[in-house]
Every structure is written in C-alpha cells, then in structure tokens.
C-alpha cells in the first residue's frame, strides 16, 4: 500500500466517523459499534471488494459484503457517502419514516446486500450466496461482518460447521472484536477467548490483527486465498475499540447506543480532531 493510498484511507475514515457522530444526534445511533468498524468498512469498499457499485449494473460476479451485526450500518452509509454511492443529504433523513435510513441495514438503500438486525442470521445467508458462487464456478468473495457479542448465537457456529462441510473457502467471516456486547464486556458475560483456537478447531483458516490499522488489514485480506486448500471458511478477527476515535466514549460499557444533543455533537466532532474530551450530559445509557 502506498503512502498516498494509506493517507487517503485514513482521511476517508475520519470523514466517515464525522458522519457517524452526526447520525448520533437526535434519535441517536449505535455509535460504539459503528466507530469500531470504520477502518474495516473503508478498507473493504475502497481497496478490497469488487462490489460493482457506481459502475452501472451490478452482476452475479460481484463480491458481496453482508453486515450481520447490523448496528454498524452508520459506518456503511458514511462510507457510501464518501465514495459517492449515497447522496450526503440523505444522512439527514436518519430515522425519518420517509426514507430508509434507520438503525439497521435494509435493501431499500442501493448497495446494501441484505437486511439484518437479528443476530446470527447473515453468516447463513452469506453461506448460501457463497454456495451459489461455488456452484457457478465463480471466483468472487463473500464477506460477512459479525459482532463479537453476536458469537453468543449458536447459529453462527452452526453455519460455520455447514460452511466448512461444503468447503466454502470463498466465505470470509470478519469478527469486529471490540470486546463489548450491548451492556458489558464479552469476557464478563459469555467469555469468547481463546477465539482463534475456537475457530481453528472448527476447521477455519484464522487471522487476527489490529482492525484499525490499514496496513494490517491489507496484509490479512490480501493473503486470503480464493481456494485455501483447507476447504474451510476464512475468519478474520479484527481487534478493535468500541467508540474508536472519541476518547470520551471509547471502551465504555455505558456508551453503546447514544443520542447526543446538537451541542455535544459539535464538541465530539472537535474531539475527533484531537481537541479536548467532550463533557457529555446526555443520559449515559439508553437501553434498546
């Protein structure tokens, strides 16, 4: 990756975070889970996926990205805006019943492959897509982003068993390992570690790296084999920080879903650019 590319990705990620912070005003959004996967989203759309967006009709040869954790959709929309796939003004329609921009992804927004919201579903849907790609002899990739809390759902593991049984090595599960589920640290509720060992024991090819480092992301994704020989699905565990970019909310159990006041949003935008931490007076925890 050239320095120019790296710098472009970093500035895109910064602008995507600005969009996410703005979407946390008013009705709010799941800001923590959105901020943790910004580099992933930006890297995948700008550098990795042959998604066909913005290039006329999308066909069956495209790469697919599924957002299984769902709460991260502001990061996707922010990325789409930055890449010119979504009108910037539409983000102002967040939570308006007259648009389709709400807390979970849905196919009414062009580029969204499938809706989500109920955890543990899209690994299976993605496996179905990956299976069809195999049946047709195509070499495209199917990527699905899950949360780490989402790994509580048995259906994720069930799908991995089935995907590996059918040798779906065109399928890649990316775990946004931000260490938190809704209200607590994952390890305090249903411990997941040692996560690499668990996935390897299921027959997956596993890589683990810093999910905020574009160079490490590049290394992990570039070495994904189209056919990796083991026959198993690929797993990339991206170690991330919930609320990344905003020290006032980073890695805090009570900053999962946030609905900020307009003046707080302005301060958070400053904080993102390195100014002092925001004094937040909004309710600390909105339970959804």
């Amino acid at each position: 990756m050239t320095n120019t590319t790296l710098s472009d990705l970093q500035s895109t990620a910064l602008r995507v975070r600005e969009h996410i912070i703005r979407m946390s005003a008013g009705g709010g959004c799941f800001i923590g889970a959105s901020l943790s996967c910004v580099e992933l989203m930006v890297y995948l759309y700008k550098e990795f996926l042959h998604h066909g967006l913005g290039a006329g009709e999308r066909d069956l040869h495209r790469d697919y990205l599924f957002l299984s954790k769902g709460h991260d959709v502001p990061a996707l929309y922010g990325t789409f805006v930055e890449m010119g796939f979504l009108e910037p003004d539409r983000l102002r329609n967040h939570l308006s019943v007259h648009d389709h921009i709400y807390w979970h992804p849905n196919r009414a927004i062009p580029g969204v492959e499938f809706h989500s919201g109920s955890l543990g579903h899209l690994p299976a849907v993605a496996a179905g897509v990956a299976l069809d790609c195999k049946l047709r002899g195509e070499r495209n990739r199917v990527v699905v982003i899950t949360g780490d809390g989402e790994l509580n759902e048995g259906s994720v593991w069930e799908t991995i068993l089935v995907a590996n049984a059918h040798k779906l090595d065109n399928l890649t599960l990316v775990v946004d390992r931000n260490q938190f589920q809704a209200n607590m640290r994952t390890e305090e509720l249903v411990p997941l570690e040692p996560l690499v060992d668990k996935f390897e024991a299921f027959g997956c090819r596993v890589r683990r790296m810093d999910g905020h480092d574009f160079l490490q992301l590049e290394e992990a994704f570039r070495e994904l084999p189209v056919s990796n020989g083991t026959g198993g699905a690929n797993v990339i565990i991206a170690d991330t920080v919930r609320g990344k970019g905003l020290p006032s909310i980073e890695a805090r159990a009570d900053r999962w879903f946030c609905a900020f006041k307009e003046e707080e949003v302005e301060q958070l935008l400053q904080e993102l650019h390195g100014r002092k931490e925001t004094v937040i007076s909004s309710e600390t925890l909105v339970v959804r």
Partner: protein
Amino acid sequence: MTYEELLTQTALEDERIIVMTAENRALVRNMPKVLGSRFIDTGITEATMVGMAAGLALRGRIPIIHALAPFLTMRAYEFIRTDVGIAHLPVKLSGYIPGLLSDGNGPTHQSIEDVAIMRGIPGMEVYCPADEDDLVKSLPAIWASDAPAYVRVNHKKGIYTHRPFERGQAEIIAEGADVTILVYGFLFENALKAQQLLTQEGLSVGLINMRSLKPVDEAAIVRAAKRCRMLVTLEDHLKTGGLYSIVAEVLLQYGITVRTMPLAFEERWFKPGLLTEVLEVEGLTPEKIAAKIYSSSKLVYAE
C-alpha cells in the same frame, strides 16, 4: 406420480431449483445421484438451511427445502420470517409428516400449530394438500410462483381424483343445505367418507377440500355459510390459528353468522400411537366424525 418423481422432473427442467434438506431424506432419496451439486444436505441445521436458502434465492435460485414439519417451521421460524419473509424470497418449504402423520413420534414431532404460525408471516403462502394426487397437482403452481410458500406435505395415496389446482381456490367436492364440512390435508379422506355416511342418513352435506389456506378461498367459505345451517371445520391442527380461525375471520369480515363446529385439537397435543389407533382415540374415524356432526346438526335443527 410421486412427490419425488415430480421434484426430480421439475428440478431437471429448471436449473434454478436447488433441493435442500436438513438431513431428512425420506422424500428425496434419489436426489443426490440425479441432481449432483444441486442437492444440498446441510445436516441437522434447520435454521442454517433456511438462511442459506435465502442466500441462494438472492442469487436467483429457487430452493425447495425439506425437514420434518415441526423443526422446519418452529426451530427455523425466525429465519423463515426474517430472511425469507421480510425479503419475500421464493423459498419453498416442504414440511414432512405434519399433523397426524407424525403418528407414533410424540408431541415433539407434532406439527399442529404450523398453519397458524406460517400464515402469520406477511406474504407467506400456505398449502395443505389432501393426498398425493392433490399434492402433485398443487406443487407445480406453488413452485413456479415468486412467493415464499409452506407446504404441508401429505404424500399418502388417496382414493379421490382431484380437480386441477388453482392458487387461492378451494375444491368443492359436494354442496349441501344442512351441513358443509371444510377440511384440509390428511383428514380429507375421512371427511369424504363421513360425508357419504351422513348423506345416507338423509342429511344434505357439502364437502370442501380447502387446499390453499393462504390465500384462502373466501368466496367458497361465504357461499357455504349462506347455503347451509352449519359449518364444520375439520383439521389435524390446534383450534387456535388454523382453519377454524380462518373461517371465523372470513365470516366476521363479511358480516355473516353461522353455527360452526370446530373439530381440532384444543389446547393439547394428541396421544401418540399408530395412526389407525390415534384416529380412533381422537374420534377422527369417518364414523366418529359423522356421529359428531349428526348429533350437532340435530341440535341446530332443534333450536
């Protein structure tokens, strides 16, 4: 023609069809060698099978998926509702041994709430063929449509030659002035025999094979309600949410009142055993059905 023969023929003619099973191969034994890679056995994983079917449908496939009816409709319910239902994908669900056909398995295997829960999904169609003849006459249209559909697969050989199937149309077997029996699925044959017994007793008895429960033939229900003094809904399903509920909904909508006798399971699972014995114990033999209807119809006349 059997279910499997029809499925084989349809799948060979249409590359879009993927036959899936969650390791229930009773209906699809020969599929692996006939279809090759278009036959997918996911193992005992109903939820994953349904999610994968949704993914295959996103790519233009028409998955026809198989599992025992209770596990397909209940273990995987949220996947059906959320992945197939919300996206309105053409996934075709074949539920094996629904209702009484689970005979000796016990309550874990008794799918007697499937009609209620499957018709609760917006856009999901629900079909309940009377026997193998009805089944193979119904399936080509069901599989060819763009809608998701649940089929209570009843592959038992019947004694009746059914008329061609049309979506949303009931099959009117007979019309009557005293009583009309509305039935679907496995109990059709016993209803037919009960109708004959009651006719011999001098009653004028109609019989309707409902076939298509969603969309339902509202006109057939309304006509029967207007024509006769009593309706009977007969089903191997809980009383809640099945045909009795459907008929109540339709009659209320049209502002029609008619005495309606439900023959269904009330707040309980049925005692498992060999099917012939279960029918005796549950009072679902032709004679017992006829006797219940006969005494009930006399009460209606006495009022």
